[in-house]
């Protein structure tokens, strides 16, 4: 029983990170119709930013998260406005190529600056955890889950309760109609990508506190974001959060299977995704369009 509870906790904690990585990816995909292959790279840029600030100034890594968000928002806005906007109406393959190229550039610039050494953020409280009668919950991971949920809630609020959020939703629903009621499409696209990048940056900051990072550590996160969004269903923040948590749980249980469970954890997690797609193509919480 205790093992089961421990597994659920591990799964949810990991799922929180997946959700944080997924929400920005989902926003960009849903509104801009771009499967952003540079998303994992943005995550790692956020991770290095946290590491750099922490190493240079000793600022508490949690306090670097707002800086990650603002910096990545600005970066994302400029990239969309200056580069991606030029091919936004082109077929999917072009945006694939472009974001893949951006991914390569970002990873190689990081390699140039930081080399391929493993880096990690180690604070005084890094090893500490909450002991619940034999079950240990690391404080950092617990906080990371909380922050992931907070980021998702803030994004949902922004999309549904603010002027810019309604513009983003309108653009996501129908570009032509949106511009003919007076919405500046290029600005709305850039804000959307900026928000996606900001979420990625915060997720990266959290990841830097949890695992050792290298410039290439972002690639699995692109793939996982993809799975999480498909699992939950495109188009709603809450769906992505559920997708992230479910993916974390499935992975945790797969890893616990005696024998070769840990080897096949990824395969099992993807298998579950395929199963969901077969039975519920719109995802667990998605709406058919």
């Amino acid at each position, binding site marked *: 029983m205790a093992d089961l509870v421990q597994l659920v906790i591990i799964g949810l904690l990991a799922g929180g990170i997946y959700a944080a990585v997924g929400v920005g990816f989902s926003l960009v995909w849903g509104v801009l119709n771009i499967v952003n292959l540079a998303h994992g790279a943005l995550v790692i840029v956020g991770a290095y930013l946290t590491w750099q600030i922490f190493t240079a100034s000793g600022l508490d890594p949690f306090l670097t998260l707002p800086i990650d968000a603002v910096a990545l928002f600005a970066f994302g806005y400029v990239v969309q406005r200056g580069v991606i906007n030029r091919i936004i109406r082109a077929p999917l393959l072009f945006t694939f190529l472009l974001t893949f190229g951006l991914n390569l550039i970002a990873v190689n610039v990081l390699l140039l600056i930081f080399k391929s050494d493993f880096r990690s953020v180690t604070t005084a409280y890094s090893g500490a955890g909450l002991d619940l009668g034999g079950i240990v919950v690391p404080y950092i991971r617990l906080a990371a889950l909380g922050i992931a949920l907070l980021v998702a809630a803030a994004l949902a609020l922004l999309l549904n309760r603010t002027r810019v959020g309604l513009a983003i939703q309108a653009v996501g*629903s129908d570009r032509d109609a949106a*511009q003919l*009621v007076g919405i500046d499409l290029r600005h709305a696209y850039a804000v959307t990508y900026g928000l996606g990048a900001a979420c990625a940056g915060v997720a990266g900051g959290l990841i830097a506190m949890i695992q050792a990072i290298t410039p290439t550590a972002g690639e699995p996160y692109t793939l996982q974001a993809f799975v999480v969004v498909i699992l939950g269903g495109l188009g709603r923040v809450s769906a992505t959060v559920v997708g992230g948590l479910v993916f974390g749980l499935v992975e945790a249980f797969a890893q616990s299977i005696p024998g070769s469970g840990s080897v096949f954890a990824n395969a099992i997690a993807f298998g579950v995704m395929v199963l969901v797609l077969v039975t519920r193509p719109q995802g667990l919480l998605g709406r058919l369009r």
Partner: protein
Amino acid sequence: MTPQLDLRNVTKRFGGVAAVDGVTFSIAKGEILGVIGPNGAGKTTLLNCISGVYRLDGGDIRWHGVSIAGLAPYRVARLGVGRTFQIVKPFGSMTVRENVAVGALFGSDSERPPLRAAFDRADSVLELVGLRMKADLPVSALTIPDRKRLEVARAVATRPKLLLLDEVMAGLNNVEIDDALEMVRAVHETGVTVVLIEHVMRVIVGVCERVIVLDLGRTLADGQPDVVLRDERVIQAYLGERYARRLRGG
């Protein structure tokens, strides 16, 4: 007096075909103008030229004397040119009220209403078009006539000075057309200039003070409905003998 909208030699080509070919006319403030013509005459293309969706291949479009040719669509919209689509384009992820509120939020350049005020305006526009009771429904729950009303409501919410309506009556039955006519009149009475693309002659005769007939991208006739609809060229190109006979007979 400077006309509100002034088209001079407006031309738009697709490949070698001129969809709109040297169209010239102007609209005075407060007018209600019908645009008719056979399928492929260039009516919707003309609206797309005015609202900035297409770049002109020739000619000029002036808004209160200032050229708006080449402006991005959102800038034209913010100047006060509202627009509906022949095939309705609602924001599918939102409720009826939210759809209209987006129009109120972004339409006019002079006014940037706060969220609350935009939703209040949405409610009053929904009242005007007769959708007040359905404000909280998702768009998917609306019938076709109601979707057309929503299309008009969203455009009206942008506070247009000129409203371009692209076949808002197509596919409606007679009772629904009467309701829609009532709606267009109500909008017009708020001081909005209206341009109406329509195939339903009853609508043109019912509300328009002036009609322009397009054929093959050119202006075939321009004048009062009762004169234009008796024009021999218009009958040949568009209305057909049967309609003409009915008109003469009745």
